[in-house]
C-alpha cells in the first residue's frame, strides 16, 4: 500500500494523506505510519494471530487529536509488540475519537524503521477540493 505521500525531511520523515472525511483521514494516517514502520507478512494465516485493541483519545482540536492518535498507536505497538495493519474509526466527534486497531505480532513482520513519535512540528489538517488532507512529521 502506498496511499500516501512522503514528505522529505533532513533528519526525519513526514507523510501527507488525503481522505473523504476525518475518520478516513485518521485511518489513512495510521496505515501510512505502519507502512513506513513494517512490512506485513504476505500470508495472513487466520484470525488467531490478530489482536484487536480499543483506543479512546481526546484533544483540544482535530490536529492535536491526530498526533495523540498516532502516538497512542506507536506506544501500544511498542508495549504490546504488535504491528497494526488495519483500523476502524467508530466515532470521531468534535475532538474525541474511539477506534479499534488490529495488530499482528511484530515478530511475524519485517520491521524496517523505528518511529519514535509523531510531532506537532508542521502539523496540518485542511480541506481542499472536497478532500480532507493532513501532514505529520515523525521523529525517526
Amino acid at each position, binding site marked *: 500500500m502506498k496511499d500516501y505521500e*512522503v514528505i*522529505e*525531511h*533532513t*533528519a*526525519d*520523515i513526514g507523510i501527507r494523506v488525503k481522505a473523504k472525511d476525518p475518520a478516513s483521514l485518521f485511518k489513512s494516517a495510521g496505515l501510512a505510519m505502519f507502512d513506513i*514502520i513494517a512490512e506485513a507478512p504476505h500470508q495472513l494465516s487466520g484470525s488467531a494471530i490478530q489482536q484487536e485493541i480499543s483506543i479512546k483519545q481526546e484533544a*483540544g482540536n482535530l490536529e*492535536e487529536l491526530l498526533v*495523540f492518535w498516532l*502516538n497512542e498507536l*506507536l*506506544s501500544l505497538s*511498542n*508495549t504490546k*509488540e504488535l504491528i497494526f495493519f488495519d483500523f476502524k474509526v467508530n466515532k470521531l466527534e468534535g475532538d474525541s475519537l474511539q477506534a479499534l486497531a488490529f495488530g499482528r505480532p*511484530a515478530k511475524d513482520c519485517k*520491521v*524496517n*524503521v*523505528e518511529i*519514535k*513519535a509523531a*510531532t*506537532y*512540528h*508542521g*502539523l496540518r489538517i485542511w480541506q481542499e477540493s472536497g478532500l480532507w488532507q493532513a501532514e505529520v*512529521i515523525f*521523529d*525517526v
Partner: protein
Amino acid sequence: MTGMLEKIDDFHWRIPRSYKAGMKVDGLIYADEKLLKDIYHDKALEQVANVAFLPGIVNYSLAMPDIHWGYGFPIGGVAATDIEQGGAVSPGGVGFDINCGVRLLKTNFQYEEIKDKIRDLVYALFSDVPSGVGSKGDIRVSAKEEKQLLLKGAKWAVENGYGCQDDLECTEESGAIPGADPDAVSDRAYERGKAQSGTLGSGNHFLEIQVIDQLFDRDLCDRFELDLGQVMVMIHSGSRGFGYQICEDYSRSMIACLQKYNINVPDRQLACAPVNSPEAKQYIGAMRCAANYAWANRQCLMHLARKSFERIFSMSWQKMGMSLIYDVAHNIAKIEKYVIDGKEKLLCVHRKGATRAFGPGNPALPERYRESGQPVIIPGDMGRNSYLLVGTKKAEEETFGSTCHGAGRVKSRTASTKSTNLNTLLKELESKGIIVQASGRGTIVEEAPSAYKDVNDVVSVVHNAGISKRVCRMRPLGVIKG
C-alpha cells in the same frame, strides 16, 4: 531566509531579532561558508528563529555547525532561559530520545596487533549487544529495582556488576543527574522502557570499533594515554522507548500550558512552561529519570562490549585497558549557572543535538579532567571519522558551555535510500577496512556516509571558533548498527 543572515566573522552568523516579530533574542549560528550551503537547504534556520521566542531566553538562540532541520528546535540547537525571569523548559528542546549520548572507551591494543581479529570482534559484538527496532535485552529489572535505576542511573548498573566505580567518574553527572522523580513517570513509560535496558536501538545509534588516525594535541593525548594506531570503542544510544514516552506525555500536557501561562511560540513542538511551574517541575523530574535510564543503558552496553572483547581475546577487560574516557549527553536540559550582564544567573540550558563542553577549571569536572577541560565526543558517519575534543572556557562564555554533537544530516532518509546501492556501499566500506553488521539492511543505506556532512568540516568550525579543542581523530574499523 538566506538574506536575513548577517556575517559577524568567518565562523559566526547572526539572524537579527528583527527577522520575525516575537523573537526575544538574535539567532547565532556557528558555521563557515561551506557548511552554510548545506544549512540553507532545509528549515533549520527558521527553527533557530522560532526558538528565540522561548520565554526568558537569554543572549542568543544558538546553533552549532552540525545544525539541521528537526522538529521544534533544530538539531544542533542550544537555548538557555533565565529561571528567575520566567524562563521556560520545553520537552521539544530536549527531544524524544532524552539523553541520547555517546561514550568512548580506549583499549591497550594497537590496530596492527589485532587487525586479523576485527571481523570476529564485529560478529561477537553484533551477537552479544542487542540491537535493532524494539530490541530487548537480557538485563531484566524488577518494578522495584526500576525506581532505583531511575534514581541512580549508571551507578545502578555498576552496583549490579556492570562496570566499576571509575566508570562513573568518567560520565557526565557521574551517570546520574540528581532530582529525578520516578513518581512523575507514567505507567506507560515504565511499560515501554521495560526490557530495553542494555539495548542499542536502531536508526543512527551504533557501536563502533575505531582506530586513532590523527593526533592534534600531543600533550592532551599523553595525558589521556592515547596514541596513533590505538583501538577505541564508541557507543551511541539513548533512553529508548522510556524517553520517547516521557517526551510524548509532557509535550502533550505542555500544549495546555501555552494558554495557561500566556506563551506565544510559532510551533507547538516548542510547547513549554516556566521552569518554576508545577508542570515544568514534573517534566524535569521525569526527564531526569530518562536521562538516568540512558546513562544506565550506555553503562550496560559498555559492559556487554567489554565482555565481547574478553570472549575474543581471552583476557580481562582491565588487562586490555578498556577504561572509559568519557560519556556525554547530547539531548538534555540542565540547570546551570552563568554570568549574564555581570550577574550570576541560574539558567535552564537546552542542548538539542549539542554537547556540554566545559573548559579547564570547571568545578563540575572530575579531578582528572579539571586541568584539561571536559572530554567531548563527536561521532561522525560510518565511513569517515569521529573525534575526541575538550571543552573550553570560551564555550562557557559564548555558548553556555556547549559545542556540536556529530556530523549532522544533510540528506533525508528517503533520498539516501534512493541514491545508495547497499552492495556498492558495503564494498566501498570494506575497501576502506570497515566491516558493518546491521539488524536492518535499510538502516545501512539510510545511514550512508553521503547522508551526512563531513564531520571534519564541522569539528574544524568548533575548533577554530574556540568553543572546543581537537585532541585526536578516529576512523571506523567495525560498525554495529540497529
